[in-house]
């Protein structure tokens, strides 16, 4: 009990301290500096309508590369930590009829929807991350519905690696063509799609990168789920 009170006092001190500092950053005021630059130049410099996407993929592309890497580390780490000689799924009961048929029927639609989200990332809210998560949800449904279902590791792991290699390669092509790593060569050097800003075929390499991210995020999250579901067999260590 003493400890709990101590903890609460300590936490309240931190809270007051943060609140005092936040008072100096009033809510709802316009303090944009670099943000204003982004909003004013986003269409001509990247061709994207959704400024957040342009910031994520173009202006702060390094962050996104790092973010994809973090997810890659997580999926690799989960696979490394839960690695055993022999593993299998131990669920006993099949899902109900609704779940099994639903999962079978809905799978292509959910995947199409995920693909739609990440291809339209430069126009509407969304992008590679929610798109990939949607695809992973489809596989999660399959795992819940069928007791013996398992993804094909010979396809998934290399696909994950290939998507990552694709991202780095797009960046390196930018280095070769434009002289900068992650340079948007499609938009800034070739000028493709300048006339249809606001339609699908525009915004330089954003759709390409978001497709790669979508595939990567989808496979990685599915891999994490797969590793969490399978339990070690008796005696297999």
């Amino acid at each position, binding site marked *: 009990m003493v400890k709990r009170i101590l903890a609460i006092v300590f936490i309240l001190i931190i809270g007051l301290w943060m609140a005092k500092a936040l008072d100096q950053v009033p809510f709802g005021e316009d303090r944009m500096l670099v943000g204003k630059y982004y909003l004013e130049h986003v269409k001509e410099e990247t061709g994207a309508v959704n400024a957040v996407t342009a910031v994520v993929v173009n202006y702060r592309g390094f962050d996104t590369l790092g973010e994809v890497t973090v997810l890659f580390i997580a999926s*690799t780490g989960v696979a490394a930590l839960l690695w055993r000689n022999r593993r299998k799924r131990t669920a006993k009961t099949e899902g109900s009829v609704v779940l099994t048929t639903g999962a079978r029927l809905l799978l292509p639609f959910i995947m199409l929807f995920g693909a739609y989200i990440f291809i339209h990332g430069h126009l509407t809210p969304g992008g590679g991350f929610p798109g990939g998560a949607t695809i992973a949800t489809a596989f999660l449904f399959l795992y819940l519905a069928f007791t013996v279902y398992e993804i094909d590791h010979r396809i998934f792991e290399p696909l994950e690696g290939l998507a*990552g290699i694709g991202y780095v390669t797009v960046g390196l092509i930018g280095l070769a063509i434009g002289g900068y790593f992650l340079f948007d060569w499609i938009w800034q050097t070739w000028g493709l799609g300048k006339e249809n800003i606001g339609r699908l075929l525009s915004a330089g390499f954003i759709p390409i990168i978001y497709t790669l991210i979508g595939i990567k995020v989808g496979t990685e999250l599915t891999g994490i789920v797969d590793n969490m579901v399978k339990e070690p067999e008796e005696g297999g260590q």
Partner: protein
Amino acid sequence: MNQYASLLIALPLFSAFFIPILKRISKNAVMPFLAFVTLIQTGIAALVFKEVYTTGKPIIVLAGGFKPPVGINLYIGHFAALFVLVIAAVSFLMALFSIKAVSIEPKDKYAMLFLLLMLGATGMISTGDIFNLFVFMEITAISAYALTAYNKTGEASEAALKYVVLGGVGSSFFLVGIALIYGSLGTLNMAHIAQLAGLINPTAAKVGLALLIFGLAVEAEQFPLNAWAPDAYQEAPHPVTAMFSAFVVKASLYAIGRILYILSAAEGWSSILRLLIILGTLTVILGEMSALRQTNVKRMFAYSSIAQVGLIAVGLALGTAAGVSASVFHMFNHAIVKALMFLAVGYVAVELGGAEIDKFEGLGKRMPVTAFAITVGAISIIGIPLFNVFWSKIQLILAALSAQYTWVVALILGASLVEATYYIRLIHAIWFKGEGEKVKENTVLVLAMLLLAALIIVVGIYPEPFWDIMQKAGSDIFDVAQYVKNVPLMGVNP
């Protein structure tokens, strides 16, 4: 041409993504591939180092071709060039060691995590953007969590869990700090922040800076948040321990120094300096006291490492150019010494099956070269003249004296005395106790250890050229005006 320095980031990433495909072709190729990639990385880092130190100008890598503060830039100045080389070289040696030391499956995952740990530290040191620093810190931290738990024993999982919990709290605090700084300045680029630092609201700056330092203190092993360090050092695979001590900590310490000095124009900044100096002092005292009562040598070295890191933090917080340069010198020396010592101890643990102190009895007769390496490292870290750490400790003392912190001098001398106690106990056990059969030592590892030991002695005998390099690297952190001038900021001004 300078943009090709971005290969420092691109190469490890590309290789890590390539390993799942390589595994399909040949499983045995993974570890040699790891050594090969780190060797190439060392080559690129050496080229970058040569470029920076011959021209005297930093290399600025612009991601996506946007000028800062609009785009993210990498700033490879004198400090970053030096430490990127240290990181790559240590990684190469540890990759060689991994071939021998890592026997637990899945090795391909180990290789990926290894490369990404190296990538994260490289990125932390070279980035010029405060949020990008966070991303690279998380890359480093998350691969470090996974590598800590890699042995899959109960103790390793426990150590990793401590690390995850502290790291998660730290990264949340770091983000709150970023929110405060961004909220009051509207920019994330470090040079731009430094340029506008005079305008920042003092309360927001103080709290934000303190939160950023607390966030980084987890990785930098400063006092209240370093409970994970001894456990993780003890339980991680041996090459990984050496990497933690040699450069993961150093990268975070650099980040603390950089963030501290870019906001030096803010009002009330010196109170943060005082906070950091107190944290560093407590870290030194507690680290040395705990090291005294350890029986596991790896854990003892871990506490010793924590104490040295505390000294570096104290040096960074002195607030003078001499203090920062001395800190950088100490970082460099400590990186070499601890890489050598953890390599040697790990090798002993692999060969003799454990790192308890009784395994070290008679080591002088059983594994003479390894014993010699440990002895050189121990003597050096105590601060005996003609070894490298002596010079950095002297420089730290001089800097503390000129900054009027006499008690820091007492702290450094006292720490050296305590170190002498426990290291001499270890040396005694190695050379004057016990007997045993001779173990055949691996040629590659012997060469690696002799190389590092030779480097220690060379720095110890000819410190001047190295001290010149360190002064340049130190002023790279301290001289913020020059830093702002070096970064090609485009005029986005309030």
